């Protein structure tokens, strides 16, 4: 079954869309990192995706490109959903921010920075969201040591 949304994206961005797939109505498009913001803006302005549901990342170590950004969109007008992904290489773990399009991306991107160490160019305030000041590293990276602890207080005994 051809998907109207995915076909529209592929026609509009033939060079940027790397892959699309759909499973029981869950439609996913994988795009190049360079086109991340441009495709997102098109989704918002032209296709009516007015709600950013979630933005997070995944670590596929040792695959290269290592990381993947995952974004879920919803259109309250059309009752459409779409998942947008983009591969992010370990050597340049960064992407454009979506905060200018959806202000709700702010804390999601801070969380992705905190947990995975992916930076977002143009983010207004890219601080850690969950971990405390002085915490070193990004704990959801697969190479973060499983037993590593960074206590804020010296432990007794």
């Amino acid at each position, binding site marked *: 079954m051809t998907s109207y949304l995915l076909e529209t994206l592929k026609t509009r961005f033939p060079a940027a869309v790397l892959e699309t797939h759909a499973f029981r109505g869950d439609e996913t498009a994988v795009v190049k990192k360079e086109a991340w913001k441009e495709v997102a803006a098109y989704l918002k302005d032209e296709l009516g995706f007015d709600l950013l549901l979630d933005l997070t990342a995944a670590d596929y170590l040792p695959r290269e490109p290592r990381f993947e950004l995952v974004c879920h969109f919803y259109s309250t007008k059309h009752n459409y959903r779409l998942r947008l992904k983009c591969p992010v290489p370990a050597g340049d773990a960064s992407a454009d921010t979506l905060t200018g399009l959806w202000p709700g991306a702010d804390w999601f991107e801070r969380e992705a920075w905190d947990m995975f160490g992916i930076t977002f160019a143009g983010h207004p305030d890219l601080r850690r969201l969950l*971990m405390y000041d002085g915490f070193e590293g990004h*704990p959801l990276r697969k190479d*973060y040591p499983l037993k*590593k602890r960074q*206590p804020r*207080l010296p432990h007794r005994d």
Partner: protein
Amino acid sequence: MGLETLFGHSYLTTRLDEAVNWARKYSFFNYPFVTACCGMEFMSTFASTYDISRFGAEYPRFSPRQADVLFVVGTVNEKLAPVLKRVYDQMCEPKWVVSFGVCATSGGFYDNYATVQGVDRIIPVDIYIPGCPPRPEAVLDALIKLQEKVSKESVLDRKYR
């Protein structure tokens, strides 16, 4: 009314420890440091079915300066550890600590980068309650064990630890 009327205006001799500990163990003011789902069982212990006031410990004080027993109820993570330490430090002697549930006791199944593997790494603990979460009976049992512990203490014991 009772047997005591036979003694009239008389005197009673006892050891100071006995008298003080008797008063202490039946009048715990507790500070609930509640961070997670264990709090539901903690509330249940306070409610009418289990009725912790039968043991004289029904009065939660949300100021650490007025509290005797610190109940650490639920998961404590590294980010929160300084807060817990500060609450403990603000409590006046004599003070006791109950570690409520498996997360507070050992970290539970949260063996990860964020979770303190037992609050006894931060503050001294007197009684540990196992369970995920503990049933109210277990909480009452812990309270009775704490009363037994208090009744064996000396008034000279409570120094800075």
